[in-house]
């Protein structure tokens, strides 16, 4: 059977495109983790701990205050090889309270992405999602 697979934007629907929201994996291996001491943790995906861009358009970080005066930062990082990382957007300042931050990104620039969450003071939980378009061929 002859088969030519042509990937054009307008053809995504023809081959079947499904959108879904995927939970990122926190440092503890679960969808939700807590940082109570000054430290940095990561929201990633997959067994390797790396996010691989897959038709996604944004990453959503949710921080929920637990105790103390919450302060910290969060930043989206990108990588070509999954081991060397650089910040790809300006760092977001986590303030005292519960909050949500969307990180938009250019998926043509890096193959891998992750969110670095840093706690300065207080205690908070964090989780993340990203929006994926999967293609059925």
């Amino acid at each position, binding site marked *: 059977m*002859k*088969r030519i*697979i042509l*990937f054009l*934007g*307008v053809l995504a629907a023809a081959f079947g495109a499904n959108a879904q929201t995927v939970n990122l994996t926190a440092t503890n291996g679960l969808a939700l983790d807590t940082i109570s001491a000054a430290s940095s943790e990561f929201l990633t995906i997959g067994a390797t701990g790396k996010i691989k861009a897959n038709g996604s358009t944004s990453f959503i970080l949710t921080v929920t205050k637990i105790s103390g005066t919450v302060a910290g930062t969060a930043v989206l990082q990108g990588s070509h090889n999954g081991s*060397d990382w650089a910040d790809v957007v300006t760092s977001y300042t986590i303030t005292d309270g519960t909050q949500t931050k969307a990180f938009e990104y250019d998926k043509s*620039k890096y*193959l891998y992405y992750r969110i670095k969450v840093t706690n300065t003071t207080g205690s908070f939980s964090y989780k993340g999602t990203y929006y994926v378009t999967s293609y059925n061929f």
Partner: protein
Amino acid sequence: MAGINVCASLGGEVGRGSCEVRMKYPKFPIFARSKKFSAADIADSASLKAALTAAMLLTRDDANKVFPFPVMRKIADGTAEPKKETLDDGYMEILNESLPMYTLESVTGVCQQQAMIDFNGWTDTVYIIDKDGIFWGVATDDGGCQGFSVGSLYTNPPRFGNSANIATSKTELLFGSVDEFKNKLVAIKVDFDPTKLANIVDVTLAESAAASGYVFKIKGTQSCAGNDIYAAYKLALAQTGAWKATNLTDGSSITVSSITADDATSSWFITLNNSPVIAPATKIKLEFVSPAAGALLSTPLKGIEAFSLIVTKP
């Protein structure tokens, strides 16, 4: 009784589907050893751009690295006529199909042409971006794609031009399988300029002066052209994150403590960590970090990859 019946599998509908695409001339060949792109990598142009960039930024010895050749400006289809035989009464059959073969002409300098010559004898794979910006590969069972098999590859040595024609580099590309073109093609329309993704040249490192203690004085030149890279990379290579040092006695990594760019000698003075102590006469390998890591530095290190230099601890 089992019969001989191929009606279910021989032939099929030949209507014209939507979004048909034609294969235009191969403008931008990208050679690969075993690099395959996943279904996610080729989901759209942006994902392919990221995946191609990542593959180009791998070190030269990585099996998943891809090597883009320059833009091809004149293409001749040299595919041989299929072998036929005609019987006495005029009956004729095609006996063997010929492998696709193209002569690709590019305008390159001597160094770039010599770098292309280094690929002569290549028998791995090649991806093609054609004149209309369609990326072509061979479909894999998991929804991704791999490069076309290469039968043979040859680029001619540099030679003088003449007064009647533009001097070009001629690359003879023979594909390794005609069957790959019959039923397994993948095509993705790309909206980026592949020549802008990553352009890397080799650099040769050398000691500009004798090492002293834990300080090594290193300079770099483009491997073929011999141009000193100091002016262009003074700041990028003054970052400790731009270098790797390895103790060849035990294979351990050595921390680069600091680097000073020295204008007087067009060199970088690289100070290695003195803890743990490195014994005199120890062989140390100095090199740049991978292109992928270098691209992420505060001052990005882009466009060069160094052959490692072995130095001796004084």
